[in-house]
C-alpha cells in the first residue's frame, strides 16, 4: 500500500519539511496545534503549495458555536483542500463537497464503526492510538475508508472543557505563567504534558510515539508526523526518515525524544476482572 506522509503544522518552518502534505489547524476549532490559521491564510497557502493540504477542526463543538463553525466549514469547502478533518459528527450533516475525514481521538476502533461513517459520507478516519498493528491491518482489510495514523508525536490522552490549570492556580492562589505543564504521580517516573488552551485542557503522553520501525507493516493511507510540544529542530530529520522509510534513524529518534511504540504491539485490558 502506498503511504503518504503528512506533517502537522505547528510552526511555519514545518512547511519546508519533506513530505506529501500538511495538516493545518484552524483558529478556534482546533486543539493540539502549535499554530492555527484563519481561512484567508489557509487559502493563500493552498494556492502556493503543490502538496496536499488537510485542514483540521478536531474539536467537539458547543451548540452556541454552530453558526460560526458552519460558516468556517463552508468557506474552507471552496478552497480545493484535500480533506476536512473534523472531530464532531455535526459536520456530517452539512452539504460539503470536500472529503470529510473523521478524527474523534479515541472513538473509532473497529471496522464496523469506520464503515458506519464511510457509509454515511465520511471519506476517511484518523485511527486512534489505542489499537494494535494487527487491529489496524484488520480494519484496513475490511474498509474502503482512507486510514490516517499518527506515527510520530505525543499521543493525545484526554480533553476537558475545564480550565484545569487556571482553576488550580486560582484555588491555591498561585501564579501560573508557564506555557504548558507536566504532571507526575508520586514515586512514579512517567511525566504527562498538560496544555491549557482557550477551549479547554488537554493532556498528552510525556513521551512521543515513534512507529518508524513498523510503518511498512501498517496498512494505512496516510502517516501523520506531529512535533507538537517537542523540540522542532529535529522535525526535518524525522520527516525525512519517515518519508524515505529510513529505518536506521529509528533508534536515533527514540534516543532523542525518549520515544516508544505505544499500543501498537500492546493490547489494552478490557474485562478487568478476568485479567487481574
Amino acid at each position, binding site marked *: 500500500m502506498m503511504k503518504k506522509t503528512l506533517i502537522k503544522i505547528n510552526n511555519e518552518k514545518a512547511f519546508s519539511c519533506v513530505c506529501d502534505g500538511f495538516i493545518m489547524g484552524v483558529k478556534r476549532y482546533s486543539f493540539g496545534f502549535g499554530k492555527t490559521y484563519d481561512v484567508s491564510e489557509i487559502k493563500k497557502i493552498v494556492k502556493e503549495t503543490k502538496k496536499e493540504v488537510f485542514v483540521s477542526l478536531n474539536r467537539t463543538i*458547543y*451548540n452556541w458555536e454552530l453558526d460560526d463553525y458552519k460558516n468556517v466549514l463552508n468557506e474552507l469547502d471552496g478552497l480545493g483542500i484535500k480533506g476536512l478533518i473534523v472531530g464532531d459528527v455535526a459536520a456530517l*450533516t452539512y452539504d460539503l463537497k470536500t472529503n470529510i475525514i473523521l478524527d474523534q481521538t479515541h472513538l473509532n476502533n473497529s471496522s464496523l*464503526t469506520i464503515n458506519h461513517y464511510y457509509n454515511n459520507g465520511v471519506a476517511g478516519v484518523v485511527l486512534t492510538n489505542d489499537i494494535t498493528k494487527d487491529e489496524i491491518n484488520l480494519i484496513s482489510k475490511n474498509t474502503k475508508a482512507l486510514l490516517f495514523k499518527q506515527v510520530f508525536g505525543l499521543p493525545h490522552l484526554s480533553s476537558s472543557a475545564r480550565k484545569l490549570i487556571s*482553576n488550580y492556580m486560582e484555588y491555591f492562589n498561585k501564579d501560573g505563567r508557564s506555557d504548558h505543564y507536566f*504532571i507526575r*504521580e508520586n514515586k512514579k517516573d512517567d511525566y504527562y504534558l498538560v496544555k491549557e488552551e482557550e477551549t479547554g485542557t488537554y493532556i498528552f503522553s510525556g513521551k512521543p510515539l515513534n512507529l518508524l520501525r513498523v510503518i511498512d507493516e501498517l496498512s494505512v493511507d496516510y502517516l501523520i508526523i506531529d512535533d507538537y510540544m517537542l523540540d522542532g529542530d529535529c522535525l526535518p530529520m524525522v520527516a525525512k526518515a519517515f518519508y524515505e522509510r529510513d529505518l536506521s534513524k529509528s533508534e536515533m529518534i527514540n534516543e532523542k525524544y525518549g520515544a516508544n511504540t505505544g499500543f501498537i504491539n500492546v493490547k489494552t485490558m478490557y474485562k478487568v476482572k478476568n485479567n487481574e
Partner: protein
Amino acid sequence: MNKKVELLAPAGDLDRLKFAIMYGADAVYIGGNKYSLRANAKNFNLEEIKEGVKYAHENNAKVYVAVNIVFHDEDTSGLGEYLKSLYEIGTDAVIFSDPLVIDVAKKWAPNLELHLSTQASVMNKDAAKYYKNLGVKRIVLARECSKKDIKEIIDETALEIECFIHGAMCTNISGSCVLSNYFTNRDANRGGCCQVCRFNFNLYDENSALVSDDDNFSIAPKDLSLASYLEEMINVGISSFKLEGRMRSSYYVATTILTYRRLIDMYVNNLRDEAYISRAIKILQRCANREVAPQFFNAFPGKDEQYYLGRQENSNQDFLGVVLGYDETKKEIILEQRNYFKNGDKVTVFAPKMDDYSFVVDGLSDDEGKALEAARHPRQVVRIRCDKMVPVNAMMRVNFLD
C-alpha cells in the same frame, strides 16, 4: 406544570434494580455481562435481565441496557444475537455510544429502541440530528451542555433528551479520555476506567520547577447535583433525569431515588414545599461521599467545581438496616442490620409510600427476643420496638436531620 418526566436509576444487580423501582424510579439502566462500560461491576446475564424486565414491567417501569463500550473488532462477534435477545426479552431500549450498534441493530433487532450514550458526547443540535436521522430516539447529552444548549437542542430536534442530574462526573469530555489506558493499561472506553482523574499529582512548569505543594494538584471535579435546578430542567423540556452509579449500594439508590422522586412530583404537581426542598438537599448531600456542584448547567465551572481534597471521601454509617417485616402483635420492626446502632440512638425509617418516620430506639432484641444493648453485627436480624407500622423493604438510617 404537570409535565411527564422520567426518573432513571442505575442498578448494578437485580436487588438494586428492585429497590430502585420500589423507591420510585420510572426506569432503570443496567449493564449486561458483555459490552457495558462497567466491566468491574457485577452486571446482569440474560436470565437476570429477563427477570429484571419482568419485574420492571409488572411495576410500570422500563429497563434500558447499556451496550456502551467503544468496540474493537474482537468485541463485535455475537453483538447481533445479543441485541436480538435483548429485544425478545422485552428490553425497552439499549444505550449505546458506538454507531456500529445502529447498523447491527437494524439488521438483527430493527424495532429495538436506541438511546445514544453520553459517551458519544453530543453537545450540539446538528450532532443530535445526525443520530436522529439514523433512527435514534433519545440522546443522553454531554455533561458539558448548559441549560441554554439543552433547550435549543430540544427545541430544534424534538428528540427525547436525557440528562444526568446526580452523581460522579468525568473531568474530561466522555469518550475523549484514555488516561486509564496509559496509566494502568485498562481500557477506559471498554469498561476498565481506573479514574485517573481522581489521582493526585505533582505539577511542574515548563522549566521542570515544581509548582504544586507536594502532590496536591488534581483535575478531579466535584460530583454533580442538580437538585436545586430540577424545576428549570423540567421547564426546559428534558425527558429523563438520570442518576449516575451502577456500582452504588442499594441504600444510595433508594435514598437518592426516593428524594428525587418526591422533588420531581412536587414540582410537576405545583406543590412547592420549601421545607422539603431544604431537607431533600441535606439528605442528598449526606448520601454523597464527596462535595457536589451543579457543574455546567447554570454556569461554566471554575475552581469551586473542582475537588482538591485528594482521594479523601466521606463515608458514613448512616444506613442501619432493611426492614424484613413488622410484628403487629408485639409492635416491633424486624430489621436486617447494616451498621451499628444502639438503644437511645435517633433513627429514621423511610419508604416510598409513607412519610419519613423518626424515633428514638428504645427496646432492642435479637430475633429470639433476647434483649440487646446494641445491634453490632452486619446482617444480624434484630427487633426494634416501634409503635408505627412500617412496610417490608423500608430502610432505617441515622436521623441526621433533627
